[in-house]
């Protein structure tokens, strides 16, 4: 191989690497990493650990609006909000679900720290909301009695 050809190949390799890195950075800025470690767990405590690691949570500062009784576990309306400033994300879990971690919402510039969603609950369980604000974690839970479990 002559030198100019080798240089050409090296050059294209480098630009390929740079293109890949550039794409990864773009994706990172749009979405934090999807929480595979939390999703893969089938028990509540390991799923929670997959989400927040060994971080401590404080009770309170989180308003969780969930029904006391859900007739249909396939679609349970949940609202979460907080008065805390600088909210990074809100996450929702169901402690008896086959996959306890359900969702996480990230708040950017102009959004208010509020989410309204519908979740599946396999059976009567605690719904747990976690808020990350100013680097700290806050939590609230609510017991929901499910009369017909959702197909989760």
């Amino acid at each position, binding site marked *: 191989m002559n030198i100019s050809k080798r240089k050409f190949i090296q050059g294209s390799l480098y630009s390929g690497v740079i293109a890949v890195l550039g794409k990864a950075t773009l994706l990172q800025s749009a979405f934090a990493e999807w929480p595979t470690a939390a999703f893969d767990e089938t028990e509540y405590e390991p799923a929670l650990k997959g989400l927040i690691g060994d971080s401590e949570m404080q009770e309170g500062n989180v308003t969780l609006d969930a029904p006391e009784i859900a007739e249909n576990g396939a679609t349970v309306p949940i609202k979460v909000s907080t008065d805390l400033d600088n909210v990074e994300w809100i996450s929702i879990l169901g402690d008896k679900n*086959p996959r306890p971690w359900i969702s996480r*919402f990230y708040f950017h510039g*102009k959004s208010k720290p509020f989410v309204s969603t519908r979740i599946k609950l396999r059976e009567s369980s605690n719904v747990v909301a976690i808020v990350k604000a100013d680097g700290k974690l806050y939590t609230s839970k609510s017991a929901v009695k499910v009369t017909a479990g959702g197909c989760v």
Partner: protein
Amino acid sequence: MADKMKVRAKLSGTTTTVKAIMYHPMESGSRKDKETGELIPAHFIKEVKAELNGEMIISADWGTGVSKNPYWSFEFEGGKAGDTIKITWTDNLGESGEGEAVIK
């Protein structure tokens, strides 16, 4: 892609409230087909984002615990009547969908 989502955005004072329904099976992968007895493969939205005039305002990671045909409502400040809200999702099979609404 309009058939995959309905979006509404309404301004009240300084706060815009967005309500969206995305048409998606949200299959968990643990349900069985009643006739064949075979597991129905997982098929669920993993990532969603909402943009105001192209600027990200809220995004989400979802698992299989989000209900079929997901409903999602959120609020933000600084929107004006006539601004466009765009919501985009991507699922675990690499499919995607989007919907838009003009703030009223």
